[in-house]
């Protein structure tokens, strides 16, 4: 089904400096042994003696003032240990630090609602009980009296001065707004042959990992130490938030992240719950566990950023895009728990993969009475890339050109790489046009067109859509200073520790959590590759534990970063350990360090062929060290921090290199649409992906397919839809539809390998390219229904939406082949 293809400028993975060439091999993941036998250890599998469980009481209203909460009856229920309201918790913790500049920095955000509720599902009280059943029983008995307020349900109206205000303390619903302007936008519009005006809407959804959020806190009153088990995937970035909210010094908090059952970004905003179980454990002096319900996840977990664009494109009649200008409204929901980071993260792909130079976007982040948004696969970039792809389709359609040709005309070319976009971001290699051609070939476009024509004559509507996108990885945190110059974040880094013990065994640990990307496997491959071992012989510590794993403040599994950032750290640590081993071995073998080759678990002199097993090196260095000169370094534990060379972008001109590497992908979809029912049948789906050198191609392919399916289901199935009254209309998997094995065809993948000019080992990040499916499917559905002349502005293509667009329309002339 898939084959690796090599683009003309591609080279294979570079030969290893030493050893056995494990980088680039599709070995089965190490994790799969415990996962296939039921011995994975996910958060809810962690059991501590005497654990109490919590159940949350949720707001049934989108916007209301809390008049009173009566916990009397609930407190008297069997097994109940305590009931806390938002007011109670407010006295025990500090509100979360806000990223936004004034006035939105004054928003007060606590783990439970205080004074007001601002979205359906917001927790207002918590019951702690002996077990989860008793906690749930008692939560039902908590009586909350509300004064219902009018909700604000879309970003554009929320931004208007007459809208009801969510956070009275700041007097506005604006989280942030600002204008990004690059190039000569008005000049571009003055030269345009055609100006296209459009409004696009990118809907709300999330990627819904199968394992729900959970946290288990255990406070030891004797030592004053809090052990916090969490499946948060950016735990050390969250730690300052958690520690300061709990008023605990960070050295009193140990964070353990066991196996994580998927995240896709959705497990970053769980810090309010981490604080909640922690403070309850501190209060009650026993472990307290929270396991989220699916209904809670859907209503109060994380939604992806919902965005509306009002946009104008300046175009030359040959299809060249000259400039874009307009407004973007990000509906961030009721609290800014990661926002307004999304108001700048999109700028990593400000110009997408296109050559045009002029862009002016007024970006608004706005509070609404919906679930807070946060990272979701393709965070904030997928929305922007959707805009570009839809604009390319519009340009082609308006000018009567081929949609593929218009993209080709506008793509950055292979011979321009590395290419600096007008906002300072650098595309680090690739051949976009060639990937497009390959997708067209895989789909056999001419025969599809013939089929389309034949089917139309019989009243059946086949369509094909192709879209392209970038997957940026290794973000420069300093980009948040574009929105708030006072934020103490910049750069990016990752830490890995590689060490050899006295028996010559090699161990590795690193900062990112493991949520299914096979980090233990890829770490073992890189270390084995560098030290001449077999990956099976490298012991990779599972999960993350702040007491045993190295980390930096950037550590975590998010933004497609682990291959790039973790890869850089692993490489640095393994190479330094190799050097130290070489020095010791050279002394023992009476040769020079450069003469020592590490291979098959031995240190061997190339010159003499004499060799020592690593167990001897470890034994001498760590236990028999008088065999070595006193001034020789016997430390066989290396911690290395990898740090790409970023600079701080200017918050005045908003320019800078916002991210390190860019994978790209082109996706093609073939659909058949039933014009009566509006149902879309996905017939075929193909993808070409180029993430540079691959550490483990099977893992990469898994990421590409998984991401594509998330995009497909986002386009066709799932939506976190709200009614006008603020009720969430998707409260379980009954109405929040995720793709089953029957909903998606086998995604076919091919890889190009153009090594990155920026990332270590020539790798780029991978895993978030799935956003490509949304514009590809919108394009395919429009193509299918082109005889009816319908277009779609929304990223979500439900049968209802398609039916209503079709209403009253008959097929016009049979469309040209």
């Amino acid at each position, binding site marked *: *089904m898939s084959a690796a293809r090599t683009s003309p400028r591609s080279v294979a993975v570079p030969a290893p400096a030493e050893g056995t060439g494990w980088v680039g091999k*599709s070995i*089965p*993941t190490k*994790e*799969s*042994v*415990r*996962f*296939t*036998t*039921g*011995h*994975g*250890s*996910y958060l*809810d*599998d962690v*059991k501590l003696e005497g654990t109490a469980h919590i159940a949350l009481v949720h707001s049934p209203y989108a916007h209301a003032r809390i008049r009173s909460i009566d916990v009397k009856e609930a407190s008297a229920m069997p097994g109940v240990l305590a009931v806390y309201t938002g007011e109670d918790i407010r006295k025990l913790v500090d509100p979360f630090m806000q990223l936004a500049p004034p006035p939105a920095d004054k928003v007060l955000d606590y783990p439970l609602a205080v004074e007001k509720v601002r979205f359906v599902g917001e927790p207002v009280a918590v019951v702690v009980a002996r077990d*989860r*059943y008793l906690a749930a029983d008692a939560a039902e008995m908590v009586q909350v009296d509300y004064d219902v307020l009018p909700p604000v349900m879309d970003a554009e109206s929320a931004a208007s001065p007459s809208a009801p205000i969510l956070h009275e303390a700041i007097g506005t619903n604006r989280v942030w707004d600002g204008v990004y302007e690059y190039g000569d936008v008005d000049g571009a519009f003055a030269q345009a042959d055609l100006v296209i005006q459009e409004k696009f809407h990118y809907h709300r959804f999330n*990627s*819904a*990992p*199968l*394992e*729900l959020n959970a946290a288990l806190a255990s406070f030891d009153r004797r030592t004053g130490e809090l052990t916090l088990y969490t499946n948060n995937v950016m735990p050390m970035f969250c730690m300052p938030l958690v520690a300061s909210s709990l008023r605990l010094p960070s050295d009193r908090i140990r964070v353990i992240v066991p*196996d*994580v*059952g*998927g995240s*896709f970004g959705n497990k970053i905003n769980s810090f309010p719950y981490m604080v909640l179980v922690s403070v309850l454990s501190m209060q009650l002096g026993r472990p307290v566990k929270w*396991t989220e*319900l*699916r*209904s809670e996840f859907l209503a109060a977990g994380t939604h992806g950023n919902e965005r509306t664009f009002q946009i104008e494109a300046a175009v030359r009649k040959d299809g060249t895009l000259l400039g874009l200008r307009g407004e973007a409204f990000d509906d961030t929901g009721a609290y800014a728990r990661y926002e307004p980071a999304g108001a700048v993260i999109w700028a990593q792909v400000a110009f997408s993969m296109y050559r045009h130079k002029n862009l002016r976007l007024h970006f608004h982040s706005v509070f609404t009475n919906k679930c807070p948004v946060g990272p979701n696969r393709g965070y904030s970039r997928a929305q922007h890339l959707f805009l570009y792809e839809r604009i390319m389709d519009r340009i082609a359609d308006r000018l009567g050109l081929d949609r593929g040709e218009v993209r080709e005309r506008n793509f950055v070319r292979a011979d321009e790489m590395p290419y600096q976009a007008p906002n300072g971001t650098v595309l680090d290699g690739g051949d976009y046009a060639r990937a497009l051609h390959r997708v067209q070939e895989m789909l056999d476009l001419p025969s599809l067109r013939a089929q389309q024509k034949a089917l139309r004559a019989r009243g059946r509507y086949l369509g094909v859509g192709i879209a392209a996108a970038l997957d940026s990885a290794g973000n420069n945190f300093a980009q948040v200073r574009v929105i708030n110059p006072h934020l103490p974040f910049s750069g990016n880094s990752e830490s890995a520790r590689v060490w050899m013990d006295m028996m010559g065994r090699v161990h590795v640990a690193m900062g990112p959590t493991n*949520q*299914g*990307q*096979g980090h233990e496997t890829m770490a073992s491959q890189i270390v084995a590759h560098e030290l001449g071992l077999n990956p099976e012989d490298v012991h990779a510590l599972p999960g993350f534990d702040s007491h045993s794993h190295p980390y930096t403040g950037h550590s975590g599994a998010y933004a497609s970063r682990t291959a790039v950032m973790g890869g850089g750290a692993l490489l640095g640590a393994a190479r330094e350990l190799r050097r130290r081993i070489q020095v010791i071995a050279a002394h023992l073998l009476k040769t020079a360090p450069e003469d020592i080759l590490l291979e098959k678990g031995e240190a061997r002199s190339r010159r003499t062929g004499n060799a020592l097993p690593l167990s001897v090196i470890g034994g001498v260095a760590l236990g028999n060290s008088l065999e070595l000169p006193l001034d020789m370094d016997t430390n066989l534990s290396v911690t290395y921090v990898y740090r790409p060379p970023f600079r701080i972008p200017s918050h005045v001109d908003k320019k800078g290199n916002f991210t390190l590497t860019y994978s790209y992908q082109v996706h093609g979809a073939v659909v058949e649409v039933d014009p009566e029912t509006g149902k879309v049948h996905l017939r075929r789906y193909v993808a070409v992906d180029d993430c540079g050198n691959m550490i483990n191609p*099977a*893992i990469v*392919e*898994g*990421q590409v*397919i*998984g991401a*594509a*399916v998330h995009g497909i289901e986002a386009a066709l199935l799932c939506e976190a839809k709200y009614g006008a009254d603020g009720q969430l209309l998707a409260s*379980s*998997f*009954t109405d929040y539809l*995720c*793709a*089953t*094995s*029957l909903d*998606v065809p*086998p*995604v076919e993948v091919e890889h190009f390998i153009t090594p990155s000019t920026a990332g270590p080992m020539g790798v780029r990040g991978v895993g978030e390219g799935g956003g490509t499916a949304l514009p590809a499917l919108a394009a395919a559905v429009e193509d299918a229904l082109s005889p009816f002349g319908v277009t779609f502005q929304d990223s979500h293509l439900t049968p209802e939406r398609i039916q209503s667009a079709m209403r009253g329309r008959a097929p016009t002339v049979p469309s040209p082949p």
Partner: protein
Amino acid sequence: MKRKVSLRVNGEEREGWAEDRMLLVHFLRDELNLTGTHIGCDTGHCGACTVLLDGKSVKSCMVLAVQAQGRKVETIEGLEREGKLHPLQEAFREHHGLQCGYCTPGMILSSLYLLRHNPSPSEEEIRRAISGNLCRCTGYVNIVKAVRAASERMATRVEAPSTEETG
């Protein structure tokens, strides 16, 4: 009120205490400490909790522990034989049929039920058999491949008898 529930799990007699309303999945996980059976939803849609009850695949979040009294349950922990992986486990591993692994136990049990009744299923039959199990990571492609590979492997080997038979 709690009552004693005795059942045969993976061929072994086990017992524990359960209130009438306790779900089988919670009984397995919390009373018997068999945490390989997972929970991914509250409505019986995700299949993460799939086990075999008297040889039939069921969602253990839709069965009460007391309903399993005296019956036979097979969970993911019972598939290995003398330290050797079951062909389905091997195939999921070799074909990269998992990422986070959270759906894997349920997927493997649904697949086991399929292969016991249909030793050489078509792609379509495999897809139908696992359609009650959500995988949020893999897009199903490699899961289907793994089940097919396991069916081929099992056709050439005799499958180890199910735990109910050995037990």
